[in-house]
Structures are given as structure tokens and as C-alpha cells.
């Protein structure tokens, strides 16, 4: 199982905070992104923009990253703390 978490405006657009995917064998982050875009069409534009960062297990992940069973993937819109 891979847990996907949405934050801030992404959470609002997805209308949920968490979505779980039954992923057993490792997949490329891009493949997971495609699943998320399929399930949440409202997020498509933002997930394709460079401004939304991705984390895997609370660390920033590059576009070539691989997601495996048990991982937590965060979709992080532009930060606005401070």
C-alpha cells in the first residue's frame, strides 16, 4: 500500500487528505502521478506544474524517484510559511 497525502490547496481540490493505492511492486513516481491525475482530474494542472514538489517518506523526491510498498508520498504545493 502506498499512502498519498495532499496538502493545502491540493487537499481542497482533491476533496480528501489521503488516498491509498494498492501498489505492491515498485513503480516510478511518474506512474503514481498518472494514477493520481486519473483519480483527481482537478489536480492535473497543478501536478504537472513545477511548483508542486513531491516527497517520499518526508524527504523531497526527484522526478525519477521510485515508489514502493509502504511509502508515504506527499504532494506539496508552494510553501507559504514564515
Amino acid at each position, binding site marked *: 500500500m502506498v499512502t498519498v*497525502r495532499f*496538502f*493545502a*490547496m491540493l487537499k*481542497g481540490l482533491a476533496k480528501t487528505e489521503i488516498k491509498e493505492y494498492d501498489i505492491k511492486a515498485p513503480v516510478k513516481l511518474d506512474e503514481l502521478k498518472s494514477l493520481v491525475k486519473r483519480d483527481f482530474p482537478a489536480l492535473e494542472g497543478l501536478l504537472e506544474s513545477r*511548483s508542486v514538489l513531491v*516527497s517520499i517518506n*518526508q*524527504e523531497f523526491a526527484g522526478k525519477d524517484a521510485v515508489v514502493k510498498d509502504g511509502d508515504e508520498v*506527499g504532494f*506539496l*504545493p*508552494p*510553501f*507559504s*510559511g*514564515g
Partner: protein
Amino acid sequence: MSDLVRIQEKDFSIDEEVRRVSAASKGIGAVATFLGAARDFSKGETITGLSFEHYPVMAEKKLADIRERALGNFNIIEMGIVHRVGKIDIGENIVLIVAASAHRNDAFMACEWAITELKRTTPIWKSETTSKGEVWVSETP
């Protein structure tokens, strides 16, 4: 260390945080602080309240990382970082950076770097309440 870097809902005391950081060494001769507060306007809109959300664990890790890098890259003795989350009223405290060093220039530089780095790397998001409702802020100057 855990006391020096925190994300919390409740307000903080600047005096207490400065004391906490200053307790690190009697060699501290300069303490620079940055306080971010909730202002009542943004892009021409009147703001009546703010709310902050964070990614638990990751945000704390990023703040701890900023402190570690500040200690490694600047000639400072100690640093504290506190950021509030949840609902924040206009005029209230949001974030505090405390940088302590032997001499002032190092503290000023580390403090400025740390708040810029916080805005760049820490998964914390602000929403503003205006007459049009609640809006997530997507860019920080």
C-alpha cells in the same frame, strides 16, 4: 535541541525563546531575532485572520535541518526556530528565529538566511481569510 526547534499551536514568548537560546553559552555577545507577525492586508485585500497548516514530521525535520546548517555554515553559537500553526489572529506572532553569536554580524546573517530558507524549504502553508472567503497563499515574497 528539541526545545529549540518547534512547531506549535500556542503563542510563544520572545523573551523565553531568547533565554532558551542564550543559555547555550556565556560566550554569546549578540542575539538577532526575526519575528513574523500576522498583518491585516495582502495584495490589496483586507485580511481578517490567518491559518497555517504543516506536514507533520517533515516540517519539523526541515526546521531542524535549517538549524543544523546554520550552525555549520555561520559563525553562530546557537539558533532557535519556532513556527505556529492553526488559526492566528491579526497582530499575533507567527514565527520566530533567534540566532546567537559572539559578534553581531554573524547573528544577523544567520537569522536572515534561516527565515529565507524556512520559506523556501519547509512544508508549511498559509491560508488567509478575506471578504471573499478563505484562500490558500501560493507565493511568499
